[in-house]
Every structure is written in structure tokens, then in C-alpha cells.
């Protein structure tokens, strides 16, 4: 079983928390320590950037992080070493790479090298579904799980392609724009629903997640996780305690508490979306699925429903 699949299974419907850091920011040693620090704070998976000179999908915070890493002389090979080091220390934590097409293209055997370093997935920010197939073929050959981005404005035909090509998870963009520049997002439950019905792997929200209430809002859509980037990168850049920040964002002190420890209700079968219920109730599908949708939404509003929770005792930074 892949590390992502094992993680989602272990969390049992409780939202996964992904922490993003730019590899090599501000230098290799501190970068390695930061990766450990977010895991200590309870990050269930880490997403790491390989710095690129022209990151068009990123806002000022992550642009600056890439610039710091490049200015420190960090090369793609150094990033692979950081991943390999992390993998040696953390056998089970899924590692996803987020980077840009030109970085991938420039290194012969990029996919093989990242697989050997111990990364699990790869998202290329400037490769949309339209252009993804040659990249995905190479990733699959190397045993790297492709992750594609889906946005609220992505049409159904493209969502189907994204669902087919994405393997580890589906990266859902919470709003138009770039990373980290706007507060919060419009966490679109319809996007989660549409991806679910298209058979996509677990939906994980990114963009605009910087506070515990953003995490809760994102997970209340039925998404299976969140990724927080700019807030963590900025905290690190200001010399803050990223371990405490991750704890705060997750809304729980201490290490990850598993679903069964929280006595949460048993997980539903299937993906938990309206179309699962519709499939299990084929008779009168129209009416039933309507009811199923509203029922599903009610469950999501229930405070003890699956999802990350706040208990109010989180550390302030």
C-alpha cells in the first residue's frame, strides 16, 4: 500500500494535514530541521517545493522562499538529498513534491531520482491536465504518484481527466489566484462532490489556509485533507516555531490523535459523497440522491463529524 493510502486509511476520514516547505530555504541544514519540526507538530504528510526562478503560481511568501534557497546555492540534487534524509528519519510520512515543469524537464531521469530519494508524489504547478499525459506516463514508470490540480472553474470533462490521472490525492484550489496572498478561500463543497463523483483520489484543499478556521472550513466540505504553505513558510522565515504553528492549525496540542482515540463515528463505506449513497440506493435515485446530498451536508456540519478539530488549548505563536 502506498504511504498516502496508508495515511488516509490510518486517519479514517479525519482530515489529513499537509505542511508545505520550500526545500533549501533558507539553507540545507535549517531546511532539514524544519521538515522534522512540522512532523513533530503533527503534519500527516509533507509537501516540498523544489525552488524555481519563475514560480508563476506562487505569491510573495513562497517566491521569496524559492529566492532564498536559490541565493543559498541550493540545487535540485541538494533537494533530493534533503528528501532522502527525511525519508531515512521518517519511514511512513508521505512526501509530495511541488515544482514547475522546467525543473522536471531540465534533469534527465528526474522521476527516477525523486523516486529513489523516497518521494511519493509530484505536482507540477504549470502542467494542467491538458498537457499532463507525457509527464504522468513518466511518473508512473518511475513509481511516483501524479497529483493534478482541480479548481472550482475546471469543467467536468477536465475533472474526469484529472480524476483519472491523479493517483495520490487531488489538489483542490480553494479560489482563483496564487498561493498565500489572500485570506481564506471559498472552500467549494461542489468541487469536492464533483471530484468524488468523477472517482478522483482524496480531495485535499490548498491555497488560502492560514488559520485553524480555514482548516475547519476546508474540511467541512468533505475534503480529505488540507495543505498549508505560505503561513508555515512565513513563520519559518520570521524565526517562529513551526511545530507550534502546525499544532495550532490542526487545532490539537500534542501529536496526532487517531480517529479511534477520539471515539469518532465509524467511517462510511465508499468515498462518502452523494454518488456513493445514490449508488447504494438505486431505487428512486433522483429523490434519494437529493436527500443524500442534504443529509451529507448536515453530517459535515455536525461538530463531532470527521475532520480536524479545535479544542481551544492550542499554543499561541
Amino acid at each position: 500500500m502506498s504511504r498516502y493510502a496508508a495515511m488516509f486509511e490510518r486517519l479514517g476520514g479525519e482530515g489529513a494535514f499537509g505542511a508545505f516547505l520550500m526545500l533549501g530555504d533558507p539553507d540545507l541544514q535549517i531546511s532539514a530541521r524544519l521538515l522534522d519540526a512540522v512532523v513533530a507538530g503533527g503534519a500527516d504528510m509533507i509537501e516540498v517545493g523544489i525552488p524555481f526562478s519563475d514560480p508563476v503560481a506562487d505569491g510573495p511568501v513562497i517566491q521569496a522562499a524559492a529566492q532564498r534557497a536559490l541565493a543559498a546555492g541550493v540545487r535540485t540534487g541538494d533537494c533530493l538529498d534533503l528528501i532522502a534524509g527525511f525519508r531515512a528519519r521518517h519511514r511512513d510520512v508521505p512526501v509530495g513534491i511541488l515544482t514547475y515543469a522546467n525543473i522536471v524537464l531540465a534533469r534527465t531521469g528526474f522521476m527516477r531520482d525523486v523516486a529513489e530519494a523516497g518521494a511519493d508524489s509530484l505536482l507540477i504547478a504549470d502542467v494542467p491536465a491538458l498537457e499532463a499525459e507525457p509527464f504522468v506516463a513518466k511518473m508512473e514508470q518511475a513509481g511516483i504518484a501524479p497529483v493534478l490540480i482541480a479548481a472550482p472553474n475546471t469543467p467536468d470533462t477536465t475533472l474526469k481527466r484529472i480524476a483519472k490521472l491523479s493517483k495520490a490525492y487531488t489538489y483542490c484550489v480553494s479560489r482563483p489566484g496564487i498561493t498565500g496572498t489572500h485570506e481564506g478561500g471559498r472552500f467549494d463543497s461542489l468541487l469536492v462532490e464533483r471530484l468524488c463523483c468523477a472517482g478522483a483520489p482524496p480531495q485535499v484543499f490548498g491555497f488560502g489556509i492560514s488559520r485553524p478556521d480555514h482548516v475547519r472550513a476546508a474540511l467541512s466540505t468533505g475534503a480529505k485533507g488540507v495543505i498549508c504553505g505560505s503561513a508555515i513558510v512565513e513563520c519559518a522565515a520570521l524565526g517562529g516555531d513551526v511545530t507550534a504553528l502546525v499544532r495550532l492549525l490542526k487545532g490539537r496540542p500534542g501529536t496526532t490523535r487517531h480517529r479511534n482515540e477520539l471515539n469518532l463515528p465509524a467511517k462510511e463505506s465508499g468515498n462518502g459523497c452523494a454518488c456513493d449513497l445514490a449508488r447504494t440506493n438505486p431505487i428512486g435515485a433522483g429523490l434519494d440522491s437529493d436527500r443524500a446530498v442534504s443529509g451529507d451536508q448536515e453530517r459535515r456540519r455536525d461538530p463531532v463529524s470527521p475532520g480536524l478539530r479545535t479544542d481551544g488549548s492550542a499554543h499561541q505563536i
Partner: protein
Amino acid sequence: MGLNGRFGRFGGCYVPEILVPALEQLEAVFLDAQEDPAFHDELNGLLANYAGRPTPLTRCRNLPGNIYLKREDLLHGGAHKTNQVLGQGLLAKRMGKTRLIAETGAGQHGVATAIVGALLGFETVIYMGAEDVERQKLNVFRMELMGARVIPVESGGRTLKDAINEALRDWSASFETTHYLLGTAAGPHPFPTMVREFQRVIGREARAQIVDQLGHLPDAVVACVGGGSNAIGLFADFIDDPVRLIGVEAAGRGLDGAEHGATLLRGTVGILHGAETYLLQDAEGQVADTWSVSAGLDYPAVGPEHAHLKDSGRAEYVGCTDAEALAAFKALAEGEGILCAFESAHAVAHALKLAEQEQDSAIVVGLSGRGDKDVSQAQALLA
């Protein structure tokens, strides 16, 4: 997408997923407009009665050889850029957009976008590298006079590449109300195709004019290449003719160093700003900062169709240094009474070299812009 966005292996649509619907909308409205006689009537009316087309083809009287200048410097706005901003401006109207954003290097595209913004009633925002804002103060003021807001971009090398990054970032949040009026035949599909079609008028006129004046086709057509819109516009109608097509890149302070913008001569294949094309980059895919005396050629990528024309051998690409361009700028001023843009001076410089070797060859040069914007820089450099 309805059209093939590839030129051989080059081109494509490498943008964040969020922008794909905006590019699909743009392609659809472009294709729809191409079929609509009312669109062409409006565009051709503006080109003729507002922008001043057709532009003349001027035979040089005093420069050596047999050089003809296609005078885009005489177009309203002072450069060929006006051709395609009118086209894209009308498309933006058709899409119901209310705001235009654009990047600019030398400032010529920014000025052209400010013109169309004022003419057609758009809110207009221009991203310009902070380095270029310094180099091209006059153009910044021109844009502001026409109601555009100029935002200096401080990231990266603070030139055209960084301005494009910033415009793309703006667009990924604003596409519902905003059209990104990309200024050259580069970027993601459909821009390279669409910009070529709107600039094709340069070559269509030049071809008819040279045949009219000379009685036959020219031997060579020469144009400077930064992103490559004036060159592709001039080349387009000559592609099937037995005519040499020569693109002139900025060799800056010399092709052996790092201070140039000669993407096709010194670059390797990569992906930047939405397209697979030649790039100036290091071995790890980090895009290089470039240099040229002319801000408009100071760009580390190039339109994907030029990449294809290079690989297929249909066009030749050569370099011209800052010093050679300055000498040509001066020669054209002294010999013909024409102050051309530093960008265009690169094409003139190569035409002069060619004319020296082949006295009888008829050479059409794309004089893409006028030199007013460069006069103060020339004053400093030629002092």
C-alpha cells in the same frame, strides 16, 4: 482547445489549471471573431483610420545596398505593437471584460495597451520590471498620461520576464473580469497563433509593397526577435516564398558571455511562461537573467513558432551586439533621417552587414518602432 497549439514540438499551454478555462475562452472568441466579417470591418477600420495603416515601405537612399524599411515606426503609438492590441482589445470587449493587464519591456507594448485601454474604455494596469521603469521613463509617463497604472516589478532580474510572471499571477486571480493582453507571439496557446495573425498585416503589406516597387520578391526579410511578434508578423506572408527569413537576436555585450538575450542562438529547450521553447537557462532549469541595451529584446525565452522555424531551418537567426545596434541607430539617423528604436536597430545592423556582402540583394527590414523612447539613453551611450 480547438486549434493545434504546437509548432512542431514547441508551444503548448503550460499554465496552472485555473487559467485553462480563460485561455479556452480566448481561443473560442478568437476563432469566432475570425469568422465574423463585422469584427474584421471594425479592426480594419481602426487600423486604417486610427492607427494609420498601411505603413510605408521606404527604400533607403543613402545607406549602402538595397535596403527597404517597413515603417512600423510610423504607426500610431510608435511601434508595431498597436496592430495586435487593437485586435486583442476588440476580443476583450467581445468577452465582456472590463480590465486589461499587460507586461511591458521597452514600454512600447505598455503604451500600446494604454492606447487601446483609453480608446475602448478599459481599466488598464501595466506590469513593468523596475529596471525597465528606470530605463524607459518617458514611456512610463506616456502610459500614465493615457490613464494606465504602471506597476514596477521588483522580483527576479526586474525586467520583462518578471513583468510577465507578475501579469500571469494577476490574471490567475482576475480572469473573470480581466483580459491579459500579452504583448508578443509567445506565452501559452492561443497567444502565439493569435498575435501572429494580428501582426500578419505587416508582412502582407510589405510583400505587396516590395513587389509593387521592385517588380519581384525581396532576397531577404530581416527583423529583430525578442519575443518575436514583429518578426513573425513580417515573416508570416513570406513563409512559402523563396525568400531568406532572418531573425536578429540581442547579442548584448557578446555571445560568449552571459550578458545577452540570444535565446535561439545560445538557449536550450525548456518551458517558461506557458510554452515549450528555447530558453536561456542553467543546467538545472533556472532561467537566466538576460541583457540587452534594448529593453524589448531583454527576454530569456522566445515565441515557440520561432523555435520551430529555427529547428526546421526555414528561418535563420543571428546576433547583433549592443555596439553594432548603436552604430546602426546612428547610421540610420545620419543617413536617412530616421530615429529607430534600439530593438529595430538590431535588424538594421544585420541588414547593413548583409548589404556589404551582397550589394544587389533586396532586403526588407522590419523597422518595428521609433526611437524617441531611446533618445536619452542614446545621448548617454554615444557621448
